[in-house]
């Protein structure tokens, strides 16, 4: 009896495995509706067993809302299946890093051990260019079409120079971090930011004073949520006053942060917002800027393109957006922080760098963006992708952001040495609450640069 049972179990196991293998081998029939229209007419020669590993982060190649769905329902997954079909023998495995900041450190460790991804999605600027030793240099490897049709190449070139080595592919979206506001609350203060937004910090102060008189917090911030953290406004003012060249000198130690008057002025004005009560007084430790903005407790909040969908859901037409007001004496005006923030780095230990370049090119294709933008409203970095193609043109606020994004300057933290920036991030809250002077914070930044240059 026992022998019969054992034989039965063995047969059952074999049947289960056979059925499973058959199911795995049936292939994915879920195709993008446009895929057939753009399928290449010349079939590439099949390569043998090329397996690429792609690391990305939630909120990037995989949008925050998609990350909650099963992996096979992501736009990225569907498009990668198309890439695999067009490149027989190639498989792409995706791993999602929950914290993109941490992904930079994880990739470093992987680069040392030479056992990490082929392609990794990181932030542009120094975050990527400082990893030059671990990256597959793309000089002469990028198709001319991509060089011509994508913006943001300077953010991934060494030294940010137009002829600097290309360390990575820019990817995805360009951003505009503007000041979001409730039209109702602004109008209640006797102001109209749609027709007449404050263009200077003096006008902004006057507006905040009027808003404050209505009993509402003019601007809400908190200590962590992106980009509600006031950190982003301050960084814009710094860059518009001092310029990227000054920051580059400070990074190398040729100039000290404590001698940077633009940075000091930005921090001092930042401090005045807090002192005058134009920012919520618990900004140092609160975590609910979004809730307070949505419930009408505050009139303004810093927003990026990615913040708009969830805010529009609750606020509808009440949500407006404007560029950051300019500091007096600014070299750059009428702009805001933003630009191309995402990059795709190909590891120099990748066994298939050419195929990895092809993958990066595909992830930047018009075909990919057309699908991506359906679930993740964004402003693509493709020059040949008109705003009307994004499908966002039905909402005026997106059109405004699209226009603003064309004038964005790159996120300042992407330009500044990471240790100095981290030090500023730690000290800035103490500066604007008056517990630290700007000079003390800047001296701490200089110490970090000095420590690195020994």
């Amino acid at each position: 009896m026992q022998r019969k049972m054992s034989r039965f179990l063995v047969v059952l196991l074999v049947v289960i495995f056979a059925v499973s293998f058959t199911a795995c081998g049936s292939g994915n029939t879920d195709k993008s509706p446009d895929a057939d229209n753009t399928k290449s007419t010349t079939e590439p020669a099949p390569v043998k067993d090329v397996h690429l590993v792609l690391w990305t982060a939630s909120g990037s190649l995989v949008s925050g809302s998609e990350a909650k769905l099963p992996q096979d329902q992501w736009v990225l997954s569907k498009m990668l299946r198309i890439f695999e079909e067009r490149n027989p023998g190639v498989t792409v495995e995706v791993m999602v890093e929950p914290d993109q900041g941490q992904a930079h450190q994880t990739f470093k460790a992987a680069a040392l051990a030479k056992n990490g991804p082929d392609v990794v999605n990181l932030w542009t600027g120094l975050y990527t260019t400082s990893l030059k030793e671990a990256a597959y240099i793309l000089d002469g490897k990028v198709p001319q079409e991509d060089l011509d049709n994508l913006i943001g190449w300077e953010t991934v070139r060494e030294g940010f120079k137009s002829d600097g080595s290309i360390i990575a592919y820019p990817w995805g979206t360009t951003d505009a971090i503007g000041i979001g506001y409730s039209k109702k609350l602004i109008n209640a203060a006797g102001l109209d930011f749609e027709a007449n937004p404050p263009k200077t910090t003096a006008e902004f102060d006057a507006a905040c004073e009027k808003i404050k008189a209505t009993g509402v917090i003019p601007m809400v911030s908190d200590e962590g949520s992106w980009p509600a953290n006031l950190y982003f406004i301050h960084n814009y003012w710094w860059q518009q006053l001092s310029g990227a060249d000054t920051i580059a000198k400070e990074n190398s130690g040729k100039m000290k942060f404590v001698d940077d008057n633009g940075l000091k002025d930005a921090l001092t004005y930042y401090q005045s917002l807090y002192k005058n009560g134009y920012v919520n007084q618990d900004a140092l430790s609160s975590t609910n800027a979004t809730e307070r903005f949505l419930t009408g407790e505050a009139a303004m909040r810093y927003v990026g393109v990615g913040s708009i969908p969830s805010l529009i859901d609750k606020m509808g037409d009440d949500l407006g957006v404007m560029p950051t007001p300019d500091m007096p004496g600014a070299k750059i005006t009428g702009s805001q922080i933003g630009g191309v923030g995402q990059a795709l780095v190909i590891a120099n230990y990748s066994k298939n760098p050419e195929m990895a370049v092809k993958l990066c090119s595909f992830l930047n294709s018009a075909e990919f963006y057309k699908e991506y933008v359906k679930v993740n409203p964004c402003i693509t970095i493709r020059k040949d992708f008109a705003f009307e193609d994004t499908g966002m043109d039905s909402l005026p606020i997106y059109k405004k952001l699209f226009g603003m994004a064309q004038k964005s300057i790159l996120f300042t933290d992407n330009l500044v040495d990471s240790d100095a920036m981290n030090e500023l991030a730690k000290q800035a809250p103490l500066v604007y609450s008056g517990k630290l002077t700007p000079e003390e914070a800047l001296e701490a930044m200089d110490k970090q640069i000095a420590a690195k240059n020994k």
Partner: protein
Amino acid sequence: MHSYKYLKMNKSAQGILSVLPVILILIFLKGYPFYTTVYESFRNWDGLFKNNFIGLSNYIDIFTNGDLWTMLLNNLVMLLHIPLLIITGLIFALLLYEETYGWKIFRSISYLPNVISVVIIGYLFRMLFAPDGPVPMVLSAIGIDLEWLANGWSGMAVIIICIIWQSMGWQALLILGGLSGISVSVFEAARIDGAGYWTRLFKIVLPLIVPVIEYSSILSVLMVFGNSFGYIFSITRGGPGYATTTLDYMIYSKAFVTGTQMGAACAVGVVLAVIIFIATLIQMRIARKTESGVE
């Protein structure tokens, strides 16, 4: 026939061979990372391929840039949790020992926080003490307005309260074990001699549980210097500024936040190891003196 000497050597050899695999594993798992840490502490390793010998430069930076003393002070302030933890643990242990009403249930419940992850408890306390959290709301109703996580001293207070809350049950069970080791006849003799409850507590119980308190104090000191990262990361992230940053958090900050000062992080790690070693030696010496005094 084997001689006595041969048998004795054979037994020693058996003992050594039995523990040798574990020793080798420990040398590999603990010794190799320690050696690498010391090695890299004399270099300017940036986490990637820049890795040059720079002598004592990292150590000189640590001792001259002022950060070490700030962090050491934060560690020392955190040590304040130890007497508070011992007192609360003792109170709970005595209640359990006296088998007060509901003691069986309470014995299990009091230990529950200890099995929950430090990070979860840290985030819980962060929510409790956030500006819109229940604690500031209740305190605000009685006229105490304080942004707990925005000031160094109050942020540290939250961390200490969190550590005590989580460790109370463990401390109570430890002391309870010590109490259970005291012979009942000692209490009976004391009662016969007319000693009241408080006299028995201070003259008999406390002196006899000194070894237990010494053991828990050593563990608590080791926790403060080497294992407080989880609390700080989840509650204050070392802020505001560096007001609640301790030495072990600084290692994380240098090594993994920006990831460019691995050499410096290793140097801080070595300094921390030396401090822990010295602190443990001092504690053991004090405890030995106290024990001999008791005897």
